[in-house]
């Protein structure tokens, strides 16, 4: 673990004017981050208030979003957001955790570093490029292969019923899975690496295999941290905009199957904000944003707490 150094307090010297100015100035910049965050939340709340007070909880439970009649219910978008994110996490968590284990524990160093690097590159690809690829490559491929097969075998379950179009919740979920994979992998890897060697050595001394060491000594300790990594991935999936907007198909109804087209909160805002009528419609969209903010913030805080606690427990991983 890298050593953290704390500067010594300079005592009387900090009373000099240039130092005080510098200190206050940099403090202002530091505070700006907090200010931005707070103002962002407050603005969303203030501007979304009109819609929220008009509809109350009906905003969250109503399934009709009708600008012409002035009725705004966000349920289809909330369901769409959660559904796409769940599909993403269901796909990304197992693959991501296994990859993290491989990279942290099992892979020879020569393989681990390039692989780690490659996974991190996934995070560098802009969302819109994923969307472009999703529309022209993934969508058609899914439509003709995977989706047809799933509907044939599992189509009797309503969740997997057709019709399929290539684009839709499933395609969005897959792209989201690809996008959150690096998050899950890198945080899980950090958490796993932070587990002290003593745990591993004890297991091996008792005659355990490599996998048993991992599954019985390392993972239980890293468990909450890995959960935190997955939740951070989930949070990212909920807020992702561009790639989702391009492949989710803009269906306005509550999705009934994973192949349905849907909208997420982010895609709804992205496609309709600029031409929304000032007043109730804009307020409704901002209220949607507020809902998204609350969900992602909560998940973010919970996840970071879990990761921090896991790091603290194992004695010094990064947050």
């Amino acid at each position, binding site marked *: 673990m890298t050593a953290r150094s704390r500067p010594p307090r300079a005592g009387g010297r900090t009373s000099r004017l240039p130092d005080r100015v510098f200190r206050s100035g940099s403090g202002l910049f530091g505070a700006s981050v907090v200010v931005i965050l707070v103002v962002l939340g407050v603005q969303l709340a203030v501007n979304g208030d009109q819609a929220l007070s008009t509809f109350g909880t009906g905003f969250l439970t109503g399934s009709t979003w009708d600008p012409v009649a002035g009725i705004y219910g966000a349920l289809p978008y909330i369901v769409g957001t959660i559904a796409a994110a769940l599909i993403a996490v269901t796909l990304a968590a197992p693959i991501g955790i296994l990859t993290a284990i491989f990279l942290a524990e099992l892979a020879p160093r020569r393989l681990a570093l390039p692989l780690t690097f490659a996974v991190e590159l996934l995070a560098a690809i802009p969302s819109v490029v994923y969307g472009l690829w999703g529309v022209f490559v993934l969508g058609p491929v899914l439509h003709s292969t995977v989706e047809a097969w799933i509907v044939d075998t599992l189509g009797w379950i309503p969740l997997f019923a057709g019709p399929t179009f290539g684009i839709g919740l499933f395609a969005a979920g897959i792209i989201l899975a690809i996008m959150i994979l690096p998050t899950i992998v890198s945080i899980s890897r950090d958490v796993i690496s932070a587990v002290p060697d003593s745990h591993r050595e004890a297991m091996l001394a008792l005659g355990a295999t490599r996998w048993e060491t991992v599954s019985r000594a390392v993972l239980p300790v890293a468990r909450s941290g890995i959960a935190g990594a997955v939740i951070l991935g989930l949070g990212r999936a909920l807020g992702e905009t561009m790639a989702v907007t391009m492949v989710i198909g803009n269906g306005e109804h509550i999705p009934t199957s994973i192949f349905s087209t849907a909208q997420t909160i982010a895609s709804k805002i992205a496609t309709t904000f600029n031409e929304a009528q000032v007043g109730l419609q804009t307020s409704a969209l901002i209220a949607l944003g507020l809902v998204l903010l609350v969900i992602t913030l909560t998940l973010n805080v919970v996840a970071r707490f879990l990761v921090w606690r896991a790091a603290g427990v194992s004695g010094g991983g*990064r947050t």
Partner: protein
Amino acid sequence: MTAAGASLRPISGPRTPAPGDIARRIQRAGLGRRRGLADRGMRTLALVASLTALVPLGGVLAFVAIKGAAALNLDLLTKGPRALGIGGGALNAIVGTAQMVPLATVIALPVGILGAVYVAEFGGQRSAAVVRFAADVLVGVPSILIGIFVFTFLVLPFRQFNAFAGSVALAVIMVPVVLRTTEEALHLVPASLREASLALGVPVWRTVLSVTLRTGLPGILTGAMLAIARAMGETAPLLFTALGSRLVNVGNFGQPMDALPLFIYRNATQPNAVLNDQAWGAAFLLLLVVLAINVLVRGRSWGRRIG
């Protein structure tokens, strides 16, 4: 942090047998068939999972490279959009990104670096933790909400979509990244350097600027470049601020301006095959620069890890 796991890896050279070897010997001597199978099976599964994680990377890179390179031509780089697409290009987007991202950087770097200086050098436990926490949370805020935020303050009052608002939105996205990476870099600076400087009578502010920041510069640059790469690829915050434009806008930050991600988004969703190809071409350009930055930056720190 890989140092922790490194001791488990088989290392060549004069050493006592690694715990893994011992374990394997014990295991082979002991019960093992089922456990050995489970071990090998799960290890293979983990390997397969890792390779699976790479398939989309290969897929995206391959398609962008192939279709993008095919779409690259002089028109794409030198002309703005033309009616019905033929003979047109992405000049408006290239010029737009080339202006908005540097402006965003100029805004974000001082804020992020000085904010990190406060957290690392001056802040008490409490305030430093608050700022750090806020930065981490801000990183996780969906970028479209940041677009709404900047829209409310920099577009609505003037009733004018403008590129300045776009740059500010990008800056808001960059600041927490710069802040956190700079803070990490500053923490790596040995306390002894600071103490020496202060002991020599150098004022605190001078110490920070000349000693701490200069020493931490490589890490700060890394963070800055990663933030720039991220800003280049962001679309959502620009949707409600810079809006995008078909015109090539040079220098006029009070008007809408296009950007590479906006260009890609717009042209990918067109039914016109010529415009779709231009989207691939623009994606190629964008990905080239973004990946180059990432490879350069991460490659350097990767190299340091091996060496």
